[in-house]
């Protein structure tokens, strides 16, 4: 099962790219899947960057392209079944079109991923310790004994009680929260510089979710790694992420520092997301404000702004630009760091005067 090519000892990180580029740069990423029904445009022209020690939160509904884009960072798309364009650079190393051996040395070492469902991401026939040891020994030339001790150390670090005993357990002997911890231990065993967490807590209860989120944050502080957290839960983003990227129909629709985006949202989709979640403080006599309609099919995305079929603020834009013209991801009135994809001229005034009261309760 371990068929990794170890013949190329030079480091993956090319030292020539030491100029001030963020650790992860995604530029104009487009991912498409040809199918019998047509071309699924899963991600279109997505750009973002993550520095070491920072957390980027990607939020969106199912089918918005948030998982597809981050799987591309690990080079997990089958080249035969998908079309990738644009550029993804991890510490200067181009991912798109990289050789299999390059990707293998990168995966699990510099870039690691935590998946949503540990039951399908971990192997039921091998002990938890076995799987962590495998990940460690692929990238480090150490003895089995040393690797085994490392596995115990990692399980201890992520808070699994009695790690010496538990390391010999199989997956089914772990509870849901412990499985997720084991997967985090496996992802962190090589001290990755970039950790991608794809819905790490969606399957978990809130008290366990709190434990896991704390754990991810502690690990990040300890190793100074960059973290991308993908979720549909704005609450998780608000508590964890430095920057937030809102995706809709395969495109970024709003991007900026978390607090800025959540307190001064400038895109009707973000308004809709904020208005449609219940919370534990606001007035319960007011109904929630849902977003009408359903997310569009990516086989045949809408013309113009992808959100226009569900947007209730089109009358704030002159003519029918929303239908005919795709808005660019541009800085809004509140500064260069806050980008939004919307034709509305003065969303800040509209939000503060008409919507804030209604949405924030």
């Amino acid at each position, binding site marked *: 099962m371990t068929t990794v090519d170890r013949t190329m000892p030079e480091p993956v990180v090319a030292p020539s790219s030491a100029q001030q580029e963020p650790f992860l740069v995604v530029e104009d990423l487009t991912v498409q899947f040809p199918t019998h029904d047509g071309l699924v445009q899963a991600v279109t022209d997505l750009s973002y960057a993550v520095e070491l020690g920072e957390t980027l939160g990607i939020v969106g*509904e*199912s089918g918005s392209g948030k998982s597809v884009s981050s799987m591309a960072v690990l080079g997990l798309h089958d080249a035969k079944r998908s079309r990738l364009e644009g550029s993804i650079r991890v510490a200067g190393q181009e991912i798109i079109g990289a050789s299999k051996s390059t990707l293998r040395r990168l995966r699990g070492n510099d870039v690691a991923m935590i998946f949503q469902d540990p039951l399908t991401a971990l192997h039921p026939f091998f002990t938890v310790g076995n799987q962590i040891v495998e990940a460690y020994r692929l990238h480090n030339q150490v003895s089995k004994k040393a690797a085994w001790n490392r596995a115990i150390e990692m399980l*201890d*670090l*992520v*808070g699994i*009680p009695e790690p010496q005993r538990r390391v010999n357990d199989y997956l089914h002997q772990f*509870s*849901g*929260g*412990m499985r997720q911890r084991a997967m985090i231990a496996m992802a962190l065993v090589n001290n990755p510089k970039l950790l991608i967490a794809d819905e790490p807590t969606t399957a978990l*209860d*809130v*008290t*366990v*979710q*709190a*434990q896991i*989120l*704390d*754990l991810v*944050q*502690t690990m990040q*502080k300890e190793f100074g790694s960059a973290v991308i957290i993908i979720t*549909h*839960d*704005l*609450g*998780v*983003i*608000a*508590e*964890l992420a430095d920057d937030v990227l809102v995706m809709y129909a395969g495109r970024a629709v709003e991007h900026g520092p*978390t*607090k800025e985006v*959540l*307190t001064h949202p400038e895109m009707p989709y973000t308004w*809709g*997301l*904020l*208005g*449609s*979640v*219940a*919370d*534990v*403080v*606001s007035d*319960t006599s007011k*109904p*929630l*404000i*849902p*977003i*009408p309609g*359903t*997310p569009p099919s990516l086989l045949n995305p809408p013309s113009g702004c992808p959100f226009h079929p569900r947007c209730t603020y089109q009358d704030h834009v002159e003519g029918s630009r929303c239908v005919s013209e795709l808005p660019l991801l541009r800085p809004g009135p509140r500064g260069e760091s806050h980008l939004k994809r919307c034709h509305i001229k003065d969303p800040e005034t509209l939000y503060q005067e008409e919507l804030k009261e209604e949405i*924030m*309760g």
Partner: protein
Amino acid sequence: MSEHVQTSNGHTPLLEVTDLVKHFPVKSTGVVRRTIGQVQALDGVSFTLEKGQALGLVGESGCGKTTTGRVITRLYDPTSGSMKFEGTEIGQLSGRQMMPYRREIQLIFQDPYSSLNPRHTVGKIVGTPLEVHNIVPKKQMIPKVQELLEVVGLNPEHYNRYPSEFSGGQRQRIGIARALALRPKLIVADEPVSALDVSIQAQVINLLQDLQREFGIAFLFIAHDLAIVRHFCPEVAVMYLGKIVEIGSRDQIYNTPHHPYTQALLSASPDVKQAAIGGRRERIRLEGDVPSPINPPSGCRFRTRCWKAQDVCAEKEPPLYEVGGRNVACHFAEPLQVVQVPVVSEGATAVSPT
């Protein structure tokens, strides 16, 4: 015993549940499958639900909230305890005797994919309850189904389509139309929105609220999402390992929770609006996982994860005490502000210093 059930004033609540117990036997492997233990899924749950009201059941997975819903709809038979629907004991009724009550109590399921038969048309799915209970003659079936589809916000012309032609939110609406078909007095909604996207959740919640107002249906609303339950239910019960640990009004539970578990649950649930304004809050961090319901801890079931636990908690099981208007099963029930919580994570110190 149930201290909060009040029937002495001659008034009959819609549903009155007293000391409801449901144990599932655990069988040994082999030819002679002896019972070697009991999963104590429900262990003495009591509550009342008034006509047209909504009671929320919250708790983590395995706490028995779904089992409660399934026992009340008689998908499971209770092991012991009583369930009175409009004064009639329905816990021990036979299938035939139960028939008229099945009309009154309907269920909405969590997963809109597995709860609809993919080979039946929407018309068949929504029409089956009407057929089984002989509500309308066959000829009037289609208009009646179309009326129901319209009520839940679907196109009535779509009665001939199959579930696969609908999105998740629309499928959930089909499930709701099916539950409404018999004009029930009580709907048990088991995680009705947790499988849906955030923007669709609000649509379905608003629909359920409109229906509740229009038809005066009582809801037993089961969910793990505290915010949704708060929004929907004026009364909330918090469950832990087969027992109700705190039950009271929305404000009592959410503003001044008294049980340590309720406090932990509330502080653990991320809240976008609070976080957006104030950044990350301090939260109570519970250690470990929920114990096994096959062999629950002695005394108070929460004591293994509780920071207030003392010797008495292991010896004596706390009954539901009435504290500050609500009922709470804790020897040391008090509002959070008064106590010093030792296990608070400051920013990010989740890993216990072992």
